[in-house]
């Protein structure tokens, strides 16, 4: 009964919120962890029209503001997972519900995740309940070249309402997963050559397009109109990558793969983000010198026979100590809710807690170039805020309140509904 009452309250709250978007919200009595190193005891966070308006110990609360009493609990920025398939897949093994991986072609740079995200996915509330407010959604990563990723806030009726930015990265995969069984490329060297050739083809297409465009300009006014050039979406999609406007997220696990990623980035002057570089501990200097950040989903990798048992538990610590910027990721949909567990394990094996928290908030925001909007609780940023009843690195801690774009989001997913539905069985 109690749970039903909470659920009803949540539904009512949801209805109220949707009709009162432009309201002012003040979170009071919070132990506010801003995310830039500052902690404000007994602080107030003032939110207006979805943005953070003020933060501090002595913030004046306007009349009519909705008050949320944090009761001394921790108030943190919403966590960000910078590589997920949230909204793209409902049931992984049920193909009709899975829109990740257009694996019918080897290079699909023209795939746009934003066009397949389901804002009503049951994965979204489950993810939010763990204090995660923002995710990068990738189109999959089973191809050497996969497509364009979008970064979204986990609240909204349409993708447009959720979008922070579309096309923020192109996703490459240089690992064995991108290899084909019976066709080219079926080896690592094949994958590397394929990616390079595809980039050269795109460069030549871009040069040809530019040339045609300038010729068209010169011939303007001529009676003889040229046929417009036939467009190739796949090649066009790689032009912003070649120009350095859009970074490449490149999954590369082994030494060979990481070397290839760095070499390809250099050859084509790409901006790169390394994804899941398991063997990074063997080549920290090279990665550091490249200046590329790392998305780390390796914490729970299983060590090989030559690696110590804690090799991957402590990988984040090694990357941090080398001065390489990094963020944690799950690379998942259904398990994004366990993002903070990666940080927790890393801290257990030596990562300073502050660095761990940054790797869940401001670091992923910086890597995705959205740090002006999210990642800390600073004035002017989007009000993505989680109230926690304990340290987020503790596995027993709960998120007790969550705001996305200043909206008080009910912490109810399909899983709480199922729990409540079967609460009274056999009684």
């Amino acid at each position, binding site marked *: 009964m109690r749970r039903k009452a909470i659920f009803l309250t949540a539904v009512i709250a949801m209805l109220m919120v949707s009709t009162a978007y432009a309201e002012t919200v003040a979170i009071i009595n919070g132990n506010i962890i801003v995310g830039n190193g500052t902690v404000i005891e007994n602080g107030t966070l003032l939110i207006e029209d979805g943005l953070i308006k003020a933060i501090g110990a002595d913030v004046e609360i306007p009349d009519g503001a909705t008050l949320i009493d944090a009761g001394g609990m921790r108030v943190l920025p919403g966590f960000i997972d910078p590589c997920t398939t949230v909204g793209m897949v409902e*049931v992984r093994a049920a193909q009709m519900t899975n829109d990740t991986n257009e694996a019918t072609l080897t290079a699909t740079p023209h795939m746009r995740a934003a066009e397949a995200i389901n804002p009503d996915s049951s994965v979204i509330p489950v993810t939010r309940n763990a204090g995660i407010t923002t995710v990068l959604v990738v189109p999959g990563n089973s191809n050497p070249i996969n497509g364009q990723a979008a970064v979204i806030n986990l609240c909204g009726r349409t993708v447009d309402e959720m979008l922070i930015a579309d096309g923020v990265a192109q996703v490459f995969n240089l690992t064995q997963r991108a290899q084909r069984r019976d066709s080219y490329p079926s080896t690592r060297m094949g994958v590397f050559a394929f990616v390079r050739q595809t980039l050269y083809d795109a460069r030549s297409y871009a040069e040809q397009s530019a040339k045609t465009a300038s010729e068209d300009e010169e011939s303007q006014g001529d009676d003889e109109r040229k046929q417009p050039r036939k467009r190739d979406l796949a090649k066009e999609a790689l032009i912003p990558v070649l120009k350095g406007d859009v970074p490449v997220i490149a999954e590369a696990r082994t030494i060979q793969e990481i070397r290839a990623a760095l070499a390809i980035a250099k050859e084509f002057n790409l901006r790169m983000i390394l994804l899941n570089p398991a063997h990074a501990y063997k080549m920290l200097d090279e990665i550091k010198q490249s200046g590329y950040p790392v998305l780390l989903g390796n914490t729970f990798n*299983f060590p090989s*026979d030559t690696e110590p048992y804690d090799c991957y538990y402590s990988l984040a610590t090694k990357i941090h100590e080398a001065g390489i910027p990094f963020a944690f990721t799950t690379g998942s949909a*259904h398990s994004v*809710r366990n993002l903070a*567990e990666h940080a927790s394990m890393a801290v257990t094996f030596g990562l300073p807690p502050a660095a761990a928290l940054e790797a869940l908030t401001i670091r992923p925001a910086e890597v995705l170039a959205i740090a002006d909007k999210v990642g800390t609780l600073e004035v002017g940023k989007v009000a993505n805020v989680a109230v926690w009843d304990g340290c987020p690195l*503790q*596995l027993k801690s709960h998120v007790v309140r969550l705001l996305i774009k200043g909206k008080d989001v009910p912490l109810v997913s399909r899983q709480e509904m199922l*729990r409540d539905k*079967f609460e009274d069985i056999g009684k």
Partner: protein
Amino acid sequence: MPTLSKKLTLLLVLLAPAALCFAEEIVAIHGGTVLTVTNGTIENGTVLIRDGKIAAVGVDVAIPDGAVIIDATGKFVLPGIIDSHSHIALGGDINEATSPTTAQVRMADVIVPDSYAIYQALAGGVTAAKLMHGSANVIGGLNATVKLKYRGKVEEMLIPSVRQQLKMALGENPKRLYGSKGRMPSTRMGIFALLRQKLLDAQHYKAGWEAYRKKLEEGKEAAQPKRDLELDMLVDLLDHKITIDCHCYVHQEIVALLKIADEFDLPLLCLSHAFGAYKVRDEIAKRGVSVLTHTDWWGYKWEAFDAIPYAPGMLMREGINVTICSDSGDVMRRLFREAAKVVRYCGISDDQALALITINAAKALEIDDRCGSLEVGKDGDVAIFNRHPLDGLTKCVMTLIEGKVMFDINAPKTALDR
């Protein structure tokens, strides 16, 4: 004859302690917070292990001269963790997926004692596990309940006189595997029809052998029935010499299975995964079946879509014996972290959470007479943590099996180190 064997037994009983005294090895884990799981928490306690068995647990335990002392000051002493569902150390031989029923195969035949995954699990405080056939077949093979004696002998790993469990599997895995080959089963109906037919075949086979033996006893001539290894195994099942752990997901198949177990008087001890169990927990509780499940897995296939992290608590409140198991070499290394998450979702006590990976697992595997808690007389299987095992920042620092140090964080090994 009987007199002689009695005399021999007596002689052995008299000699045995002497032999043990000769090689007596005493380990005292001293000064830690002892989490007995079954008898509460003892601050600044000692666990005394003599010849592999727990000889004393308490505050005022006299440490005999010559004992090896392990200083656990500031640390937490837990019974060795037990993984009730694992597929490690089998050399990749997990599914004999050539027929939907293969009760004749035995996991004990393929254990690889020097698998590095065993050491990884030890580094996560795990000391015992059930090494299982996979879920490709409706009737898989005979699982092996073992101690994780890394680089030991298989014979030493197998826990003596334990009833082993036969793996069965319902739902999507056998459906997909055999259905895609145009073979039965391609539906849940097919799975249950196949299972029921096999059990009837086993009953018939058993009756044939019984009739044959009766005739021999009566001094009559009789043709010996043909030995069939698979049906032999199923006869052992009908005779309760082995038991069942069944992989299942949705609640309708759980109920159908419970009914078949009733119909054939099957020793159904464990339901693995069983994500739909919370919907029919009264039916499960009534029959005393354990549920071996996971904390927060869901959505990876259709039959896992209704899985909820609140289920373990709902099942426990119904009186069901619940364990959190790994089904994965990775998760096996951090079962204590999975148990901590059950506290988050289900609001259970710390002792209840620790029970999920210790005594409850021991009960599900029928080894609770020797494992699963720190009690006098049980095996000296111990995991020592630097913080409380449910603290998110804890790590296992030492693991002992029967008093022998199997993992020490100060002397970690890779698979290549001897």
